[in-house]
């Protein structure tokens, strides 16, 4: 009986799969980004153990903060953007921070427009992805079976685990993450310190127009390696002061 069920499943699968496949190149994915401050502290190597213990003890379970983001993609490009949280207006501020990551897979180019330490930057470079190591765990995220890959981020000082969909072979993902054989639907930095989870995935048959972000006039243009150097410096400076870098920059 079980065997039969499996056959039916496989047969059904093959019947629908090609159709799914064709549509997969256009869509909108919504991500929830949950930051667990306690775990962020725990995984920050430069903080004293005493600080970590105390923050864990005082914060307990009240340390999670959620934000939202959206990834739009079409056959050649993708655009990741942070969303305003309309439900959480109490905390809102005049948010002039921008965070738009544009990726063009056809030209192998990236163009990011983002605010870093109160200044806006346009970051133009050839596309840089991560050096993923493939593992063999499987799980379902947003209705898709994914397998996992990981790498160690030496600036964040955290292991980053990504779960990518086996049935959507597009090499994109949330935030800076890309370079896997399928769309990344979940990213877990530092064992739960920051988790990006796809909550909804809408595929479209029509081509979604995706444009390069338009920067304001005074935006400074830099390369990705220059930008990474700025982040590295900020993180090392904060570490020297024994302060958590992630209270100041979102990285």
């Amino acid at each position, binding site marked *: 009986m*079980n065997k039969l069920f*499996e*056959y039916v*499943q*496989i047969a059904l*699968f*093959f019947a629908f799969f090609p159709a799914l*496949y064709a549509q997969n190149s256009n869509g909108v994915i919504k991500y929830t980004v949950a930051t667990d401050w306690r775990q962020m*502290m*725990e995984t920050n190597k*430069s*903080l*004293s*153990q*005493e*600080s970590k*213990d*105390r*923050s864990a*003890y*005082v*914060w*307990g379970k*009240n340390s999670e903060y959620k934000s939202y983001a959206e990834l739009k993609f079409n056959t050649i490009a993708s655009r990741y953007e942070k969303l305003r949280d309309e439900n959480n*207006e*109490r905390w*809102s*501020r*005049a*948010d*002039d921070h921008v965070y738009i990551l544009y990726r063009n897979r056809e030209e192998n180019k990236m163009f990011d427009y983002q605010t870093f*330490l*109160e200044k806006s930057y346009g970051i133009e470079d050839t596309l840089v992805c991560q*050096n*993923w*190591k*493939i*593992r*063999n*765990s*499987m*799980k*379902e995220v947003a209705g898709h079976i994914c*397998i*996992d*890959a990981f790498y160690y981020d030496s600036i964040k000082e955290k292991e980053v685990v990504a779960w990518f969909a*086996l*049935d959507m*072979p597009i090499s994109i993902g949330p935030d800076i993450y890309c*370079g*896997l*054989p*399928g769309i990344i639907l979940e990213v877990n930095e530092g064992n739960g310190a920051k988790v990006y989870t796809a909550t909804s995935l809408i595929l479209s048959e029509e081509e979604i127009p995706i444009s390069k972000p338009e920067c304001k006039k005074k935006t400074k243009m830099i390369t990705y390696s220059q930008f990474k150097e700025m982040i590295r410096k*900020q993180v090392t*400076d904060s570490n*020297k*002061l*024994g*302060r958590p870098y992630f209270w*100041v920059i979102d990285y």
Partner: protein
Amino acid sequence: MASVGKAQITISGQLQDSTNTPVSTATVMLLNPKDSTLLNYTSSNAQGIFSFKNVKNNNYILQVSHITYMPYRVKINPTEEKTINLGMITLAPIANFLMEVVIKEARAPIFIKGDTVEYDASTFKVPPGSTVEDLLKKLPGIEVDANGKIQTMGKDVSTVYVDGKTFFGNDPKTVTKNLDAEAISKVQVYEEKSEQEKITGIADGSEEKVMNLELKNEYKKGYFGKITAGYGYGKDAPHRWMGNGNFNWFNDKQQLSFIGYGNNINVSNLDWNEYMDFYGQSMNSGHDDGNFGFESGNHYGNYIYFSNYSYGGSGFSQNAGGGVNYNYYNKKIKYNVGYFYTLNKTLSDQFANRQTFLQDSTFWRFDTLNNNNTRQNHSFSTRLEYEIDTMNSLIFKANVDYSLMGNRHAGNQLFQNNEFVNINQNHIDNTKDDGNLNLKLLAIYKHKFQKKRRSFAMSAAYDFSDGKGIENIKNINDFYDAVSLSDQIKFIVQNNNNSEDHTLKSSLLYVEPLSKRFSLLGFYNFRINANFNKNFSTDPGNHHQEIDSLWVNYKNTMLYNRAGVSLNYMYNGITITLGGAFQSLILDALSELRTSASEKNSFSYNNFIPYFSANFTLPKNVRLNFSYKFDVKEPSINYLFPMPDLSNTFYKTNGNPLLTPERNHAISGRLSYWNNASMFNVSLSANASFYQSQIVYNQLIEYVNNLGYVTSYTPANVAGGNRVGAYFWTNFPIVKTILTMNLSADANFNNSPVFINSVKNISYAKNWGAHGGFHISVKEILSFYINGGISQNFTNYSIQVDRNQKYMNYNASVSVDWKIYKKTYFEVDYRFTNYNNKELAFNQDIHTLNASIRQVLGKKNRFELRLAAIDILNQSKEIAQVAGINYIQYSKNPTLARYFLLTFSYNMKGFNTDNKNSFF
């Protein structure tokens, strides 16, 4: 080998399942064999065929992944050929229970290593207190029979490991029946090669199924604690001792902490870190009082409330205290219960001189007073927050405080005229014993509606307090006629005060969103208070006969109602509130006297109160706040009918039943900016209060023949008076991470009118101060803090202009934290303070120097030895100079000065050995 050449090759193969059906759309990846780094990928076509063209001729791992098949891995070695064809690869399906039950139903990931599959057991819920066996019964693919025997895929599980280790022998049942299911994070089932196979390397087919249970991370469960004991010596302060200890136990849901301390070195409270460790998660719980008002809509958040945080001051004190705190947290419940006891015994001396100015003369008073104070406090508190569902929540709170106070206040006050000729001398020897019980109960209900941002809250509270006090007053006044004693008046009396207070209050709050940006907030506060005071005095010299003239009973009731609305705008960092409230207070006061008829008075105060506030969170981390409030504060019962204070014949306080509420316009503003890149911070704030009417104590100073100068204070409403203050602060790095500078300045002006002997006297006070400092840190080994400041104080009077005052204060300090060697630290701090007043020819320098050396000991840094020298220059004293409305007072309180202290500490988790700030 990697050196096989730069030749490019093609790797190909074909995928099928066990029924020979081709497997298409599988993800095929080429990985680095060393660390599985992804090098290249492709997917299989409709025929199941895949190929990598033009790849380097290298070692690879080829991995095939598919949503319905077990992953397949194969090693690829360099070849002499141009192509590697892997031929037909048959993929095994993923077991149905894994796909359906684990992945889809429990939404748990499965981990595949070779042919073993493991999964996260914590996603399968079992009731608290369940054993591992109960958990295993729930897990797909695992069967547990009635005898506790475990089977997986039809095979017996022979061994159960815990974190890879044998757990009390080999019988799996000892583990599964004894271990708590909540401790388990992962269940792994795999095949273990037999001992024989491990040695020979030859498979003998007798593979055993074993199970490994992985325990949850350690940080979720644990304990920490510290104990310190010290002994010290000083020439003027022999036998100094101190001891303190704390222990905390916690797991995922519970925190239990104990703390205790005792010393005779003037430390009467917990420090900030101890405070946090003791209260743990309950620190974050709201300091909710249930009094909703204009600001309620914006401030639902958590407050940190310090009830036990301050440093004990002058004199010599002995202290002890301790408590226990328990927190329980889960998704719906936050529960906290705690008890704390404190004991403080302080002995202090005060030497003071005060010059009081009258219209045409002045007189002096010289004090030599001794205070002996004992205070004990028991406090019990509990709080429960229950989230019924996403829409409804409840908070219950109960606090009980019981305090006992004993005080002896004895000494002399010598009064002299402006030519330093004795007028009179008052000998005081008063004792006082008080006991007070306070009970507070509070319940809050909060409801959210389906409509976003619409909310409702109500609160109910009952406060009760009961106080008893007995005062023995002994005042003997010697009156001098020119140089000789001419009269003596004795005033010896015992005072008994009993009070009881009941308050019942309730508040309602409703927020209605009008649009995305506007909302309307309405609130109502109700309070009813009954206060009973029974005061009588007896004459100890006459068999404690009650003194009729000092017998009084007060019965006061107060009814308070306030209803208000405000319109709130909140969007894009801008919050504006505009509102108003109507406030009514009805006071009924009955005073029963023995010597005259009872008096009954009714007062009613009705006021309209406007409110305005604006907050702007502007781009680039600029914040701007502004608020305006019309404050109306009813006179407290103490102003209307003060408790008779008989403790000093020469200073008396009267009541004034004709008082009206204080009214003032309060305006405040604040501007702040910080830059995360340059770490530059600046903040500027200003506030002002303009009084329409304020309650001040008017003074009547009379010279009574054969007694001396008697001052009586009577509260009264006066028009006018204002306060204006401004504060500036900035902090910025000069060399990032090494040298930081801070600067601050403040200025305050205020004037307040008071009637002294019916003559209006306006005193104008003006003070300003500036402060600057550097913090230098060298490679986390050495830290310097250098600070300096100056402040100047002017007081001008509208009468006695020649008594205008100007005094200055300079201070400078240096402190050094130096990590001398791996685990050896040296700390020193020096502070210089100068007070001077040219008009009074007063100039005082105080140098304070403290130093300590400490050594962390033991392999795990669990011990610490510290030698500290406190106030090496032996100059500690509390000196104060106060300019009042019509007097200048200089006072000196000797306090604990030079001593040396040796302490030894044990920390269960080890001491921190890096010299980093514990910023949290």
